């Protein structure tokens, strides 16, 4: 409840200060100021970027395990699958800000609430795709696996999961893109990552380097998202068996 009022104050500041700044730095241009900002704080930005990527990557791993695990429990049951899809749809509409705020009470500040929120959002697309992917595995193949003596678990692990994997992995990629942005709110609970630059910028809106701070974070998040997506594409190439590669 605190934040929106702060933001409004900041907006007021912009209106007053922007003309002056524009005059003063008219010849410098935006890019020069950006480079100065980044140059001055390079170590800080690099550290936050690594932290950001690390938060997202680790959360993504946890989310994938959870999402596939839950999907494994529900995909054979129509009602449970529908329920899981419903939860996915509703879950994605919860504002991340609200959720991270709610996490502060039980988990306090720092890494824990940040991870919980990022994992929660990352899990939803993975879960949805895992249910779709696993349900889409030809039943005849499952019967064939059971028919030659593969146990339920072995059938899941060696037949259903590998065949559903490309679909699951595309869910992981969607998650990666999505939670790269969501992870920025982690800074609100003093968690790690590039979100800090956004909040710093917002809180000093109009002050020197405020815009640069936000732009730095946004560009950083976009770049990290690209890096992560490339990494996931590479992972897909490595982990998708040749026989089912498109």
């Amino acid at each position: 409840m605190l934040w929106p009022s702060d933001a409004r104050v900041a907006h007021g500041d912009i209106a007053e200060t922007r003309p002056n700044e524009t005059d003063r730095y008219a010849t410098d241009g935006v890019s020069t100021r950006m480079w100065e900002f980044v140059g001055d704080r390079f170590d800080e930005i690099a550290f936050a970027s690594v932290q950001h990527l690390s938060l997202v990557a680790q959360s993504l791993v946890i989310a994938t395990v959870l999402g596939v695990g839950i999907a494994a429990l529900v995909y054979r049951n129509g009602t449970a699958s529908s329920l899981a899809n419903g939860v996915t749809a509703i879950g994605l509409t919860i504002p991340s800000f609200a959720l991270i705020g709610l996490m502060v009470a039980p988990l306090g500040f720092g890494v824990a609430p940040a991870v919980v929120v990022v994992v929660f959002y990352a899990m939803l697309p993975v879960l949805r795709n895992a249910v779709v992917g696993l349900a889409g595995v030809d039943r005849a193949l499952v019967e064939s696996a059971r028919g030659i003596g593969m146990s339920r678990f072995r059938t899941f692990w060696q037949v259903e999961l590998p065949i559903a994997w490309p679909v699951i992995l595309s869910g992981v990629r969607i998650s990666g893109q999505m939670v790269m942005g969501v992870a920025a709110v982690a800074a609100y609970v003093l968690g790690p990552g590039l979100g800090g630059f956004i909040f710093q910028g917002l809180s000093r809106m109009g002050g020197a380097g405020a815009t640069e701070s936000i732009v730095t974070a946004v560009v950083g998040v976009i770049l990290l998202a690209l890096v992560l997506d490339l990494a996931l594409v590479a992972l897909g190439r490595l982990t998708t068996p040749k026989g089912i590669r498109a």
Partner: protein
Amino acid sequence: MPETTAVAEDRDESQITGKSIRLEGVTKRYPGQSTPAVDGVTLEIPAGQVVMLVGPSGCGKTTTLKMINRLIEPTEGRIVLGDEDVTAIDGDQLRRRIGYVIQAGGLFPHMTVAQNIAIVPKMLGWDAQRIADRTTELLDLVSLDPDTYRDRYPKELSGGQQQRVGVARALAADPPVLLMDEPFGAVDPITRQRLQDELIRIQQELRKTIVIVTHDFDEAVKLGDWIVVFREGAQIVQYDTPERILAEPADEFVESFIGSGAGIKQLALQRVRDVDLKEAITARPGDDAAEVLAKVEKAGHGHVVVLDERDRPLSWPSRRALSRMATIPAEADERTPVIGSGATLNDALDEMLVSNAGAALVTGRRGAFAGVITIEEVMDAIRAVRASASDDLADAPVGTNAGSDDGTGDEVAQDG
């Protein structure tokens, strides 16, 4: 692809590697259904024989098959494999000892041919070398070149090739029993016929106990040593040899199931290997044509069979063609009528009708030339079948629905 093969002399020498199967009063009831899907089936499947389960769709034949390896757990009754009661043992362990083939092979698309075949041996803890050797052996057995196909993925194979790999996978751990659920339902008629011949040839070598579900009566006649005809509720209407079912159908239901042309279908009962083949003069590529021609004329034959280095027929030139040659050519002649010794007389007759010679070359094991079959041999064989069909069978295996506890089972099932 080599022609289907099998050698007649082999038949008696080869040992039966199959085990008998006995279903005792096996019943399957699904919750919420008033009539059982399978009602008290008692069925003896003799070791080393091919038993076909036929009937209209939904008659319970597939359910019956799947209860043999307990893919579907029976509600009541006992399953005995060899002399071991397997009704209560671990289902996965049981299934590793029973080959299972479904329509289109059921190959796992993310595994190579070799990986697919290796699944059961791996579960049984074989070492890598033994698995690799076995894979090579099995691909040879199903007439796929191991070096070409070992590392291919299923999507790189034709439907027929996938089905062959499916059979190889089922045979990987050398199980005594092979269960096949509509195995050739998903391939074109020509491939289906070839796969059927191939299966006959493989069975000739291996002598497994094979149970096959099909809705195609012609397939049942062609492949089966015994045929079980089911009606709804897995009620056994007739359990007999193909010859006797064709000659003496138990009732109108069986008659309608056989369909028209029972006489022609009897042609499919006799295999080429059961017929006395004629000998032929053979030659190798590179031989002097004049010498060969002299031999052919001396024997009073009209043609010479040209064989490659593995005794497989390449061509079948007539005397006239020979007289125009200097040496015997090495090229294979596509039009040469070749038939596997496991093929039926029906197929042989068909092959002869399209060839000009009114005869066909018969190949045995690994495609090696075995002899020549002519129309006269086919006619003699048909006469013999007709004569023997009415003989009574003393050793006929049991197949009834008597295992059911309630005596009203029959009527109930027929109502449903």
